[in-house]
């Protein structure tokens, strides 16, 4: 069954408190090489064939991502 992956991230100009908190914890753990962290959501969908990518984008747009503050990327896995 085809799989679709949607990654949802806050728009770059929007504050990401989660990423900031993780970044703050890293030096204590000795991971100084990380200079920025952003956290988003990752969705994996199973869909029936045929895959209509346009419809799925619409789905991501209205349900998975909040277009006021987030943006998404969508990939259909082979």
């Amino acid at each position, binding site marked *: 069954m085809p799989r679709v992956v949607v990654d949802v991230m806050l728009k770059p100009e929007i504050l990401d*408190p*989660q990423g900031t*908190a*993780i970044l703050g*914890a890293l030096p*204590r*753990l000795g991971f100084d090489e990380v200079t920025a962290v952003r*956290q988003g959501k990752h969705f994996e969908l199973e869909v029936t064939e045929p895959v209509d990518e346009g419809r799925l984008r619409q789905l991501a747009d209205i349900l998975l991502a909040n277009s006021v503050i987030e943006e998404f990327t969508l990939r259909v896995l082979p």
Partner: protein
Amino acid sequence: MRVGVVTFPGSLDDRDAQRAVRLAGGEPVALWHGDEDLRRVDAVVLPGGFSYGDYLRCGAIARFAPVMRTVIERAAQGLPVLGICNGFQILCESHLLPGALTRNAHLHFRNRDQRLRVENVSTAWTSGLQRDAEIVVPVKNGEGCFVAAPDVLDRLEGEGRVVVRYADGNPNGSVRDIAGICNANGNVVGLMPHPEHAVETLTGPSTDGLGFFTSLLTATVS
């Protein structure tokens, strides 16, 4: 008896836990997350709250606080440790207790007065309670759904390490209605409900929570 209460950035119920210790007759000692020194305490409470905003996962960042290095070390040597709500989450993240706490099945934060059944009265924190007693203690969490692998669950049950179980409705979808568990030695206990909010008739639904704190004090005295 000196009972340490750790404050992490974002801890909320730290003062409440201190009050409960005081009402139970103990001496509350404030411990700071950034300090490895446990200030000669005889037991430690990891209080409720949103340490580090509960970002990433509840308790995931607090686990690496300097104070936890000592808590983990001393817990292995038998120091009584009680993790309440966020404290329970920190104990699981630290692997002092098995399993994990995940998003409530209904996806909401839920605060209600919860009936619990006490199933293990041989831990450091429950020795003064009655086995099979039903008590009422508030729950309030968004990520209190306890999960663990089936073999881990069977072992917990087999060894009698389920300390409290939800009775009369499960507020968050925890497997097998588990509300709190302990380690093999019974010195480390974690639970999602908040006994520190059930220590005065004026401000809580009961005074059933006081027993957790008095258990510790009387057990160590005798």
